[in-house]
């Protein structure tokens, strides 16, 4: 039997390296699988959560349909059926927009969750993306019956082409990635000030107007539409919805995916840059 000594011990060799990409994929698959299991376990709670979030789009749908009817059946070419399609798809895109909120960063630091992740040989954003991404897989499955009920009630005008469906399927995940990166950037402000709430509210107000959340962007003034093209908000909300319901030309569909890819690249770069400084600061002040 071996005993504690000052002699060189039989140090266990570190596990052999698997290719970096393969192990990252393994991590994403494992983490996503666990998130799906966890969220199906809480399916009733998730359903209540999703139903609670229906109030906003139904209210907007009812208001805009009433406006359309009062104007002889359409607003700028959008009929009540178009609004129904827009806001029913909205309900899924809204779910896809949910990411780790900046406000929760303070909790994450205070409870030591961040320290736990810093001790692991993987960037913590991977955990957030995989974990909340897994939740979304569960949400999409649970959303289907809700969409069916809304369709029966509101009669949407929705005739997507195959290409629209394919682009939409990619665009909702692009939207999720962009918003996750944006909220991570906001959340990291916590490392310098705990008052991130005010900054988040400002971001949220801009997003509300410029994303297509309260109204399809085509109903906004031309200058707002132009401005929205140069900001990330539209690519997380209005664009994914339009890609399915708007019968956009192929060039616009592909252009939208390219814009999403650009914002993901910009967001990733900024997160990488800010993360290094944030961690340096966190490590200096500690928790």
């Amino acid at each position, binding site marked *: 039997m071996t005993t504690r000594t*000052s002699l060189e011990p039989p140090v266990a060799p570190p596990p052999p390296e698997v290719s970096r990409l393969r192990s990252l994929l393994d991590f994403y698959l494992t983490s996503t699988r*666990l998130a799906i299991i*966890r969220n199906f376990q809480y399916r009733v709670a998730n359903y209540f959560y999703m139903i609670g979030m229906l109030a906003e789009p139904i209210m907007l749908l009812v208001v805009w349909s009433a406006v359309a009817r009062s104007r002889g059946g359409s607003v700028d070419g959008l009929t009540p059926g178009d609004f129904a399609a827009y806001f029913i798809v909205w309900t899924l895109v809204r779910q896809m927009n949910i990411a780790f909120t900046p406000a929760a960063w303070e909790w994450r630091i205070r409870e030591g969750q961040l320290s736990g992740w810093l001790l692991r040989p993987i960037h913590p954003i991977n955990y957030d993306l995989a974990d909340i991404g897994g939740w979304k897989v569960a949400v999409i499955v649970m959303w289907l019956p809700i969409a069916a009920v809304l369709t029966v009630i509101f009669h949407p005008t929705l005739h997507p082409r195959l290409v629209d469906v394919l682009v939409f399927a990619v665009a909702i995940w692009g939207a999720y990635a962009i918003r996750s990166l944006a909220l991570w950037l906001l959340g990291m402000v916590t490392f310098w000030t705990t008052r991130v709430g005010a900054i988040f509210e400002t971001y949220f107000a801009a997003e509300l107007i410029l994303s297509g959340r309260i109204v399809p962007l085509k109903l906004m003034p031309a200058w707002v539409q132009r401005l929205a093209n140069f900001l990330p908000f539209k690519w997380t909300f209005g664009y994914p919805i339009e890609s399915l319901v708007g019968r956009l030309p192929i060039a616009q569909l592909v252009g939208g995916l390219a814009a999403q890819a650009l914002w993901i690249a910009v967001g990733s770069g900024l997160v990488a840059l800010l993360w290094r400084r944030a961690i340096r600061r966190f490590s200096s002040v500690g928790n």
Partner: protein
Amino acid sequence: MAHPSPIVDVADLRKTFKVPEREAGLRASLRSLVRRTTRQVKAVDGISFAIHPGEVVGFLGPNGAGKTTTLKMLSGLLYPTSGSVTVLGHTPSRREKDFLRRITLVMGNRNQLEWDLPALDSFELNRAIYRIPQEEFRRTRDEFIELLDLGDLVRKPIRNLSLGERMKMEIAGSLLHRPQVLFLDEPTIGLDVTMQKRIRSFIGEYNRRHGATVLLTSHYMADVEALCRRVVVIHHGRILFDGELAALSHQFAAYKTIEVSLEDGTVDLSGYGEVVGREGGRVTLRVPKDDTSRVTARLLNDQPVKDLLVEDPPIEDVIELVFAQEVVE
């Protein structure tokens, strides 16, 4: 025999925190709007030590002594203000992946496992994070399940486990990647005696099987006595003692205890030393260390002694003495 190079090497390590300071009340609050006052707090104040491969070292000190801050610097969670640290040849604050794959930091009051899922699922996540090959993962996991007597508990959601069971899972999960260096911060805090014993025997077994190096903080001296031959005592951010646990008593304890069993337990023994306990026929005396042999001889000559035991004072008392001495200085 030449000493192997240290696994943990700490030289003149310091950590200072800037802490905001303000009096209570509205006036102080308004004043702080224009003039914010801060205070520098030295959490770790120039400590140096080295730990060699396979050593299990107890890191002792009262609350606020700088133990956790030191462990955080050693594991890369905190940047030192000055001084140098190397662990396994790495500078921890760089948090290189190769370094993180070879260490673990277990904090008794923190939970890193998935609350709503069975531990088996969390273990699976750790396998993916640490890139543990499947075969090795299964072998290590099963070994830990057996050593920690986890049985079917690994199939229950973490939220349904008791504190002690959760801690066992936490430790198993933290060691699945078979780290070479373990930083354990109060791993048995709040646990009952049986669970403490189980966890400390597991740590000892892991150290023996894998030759791991362990730095352990604990307020339970039983942990330290069972696992650590060497202790480092820290207080107010400075090291007061670094050496063999046995030497701590020799250096700091000014007395020994003598337990005497007599035919007649009512005999007055106050002439031999301070009577600190009496139970049936057994009397406990506290005597100055230098007088121990003389008092023992006198007792054996003068009294009908059935049994006699000379002991160093309990390690808790010695540690208390160390801290008290530092305060006097």
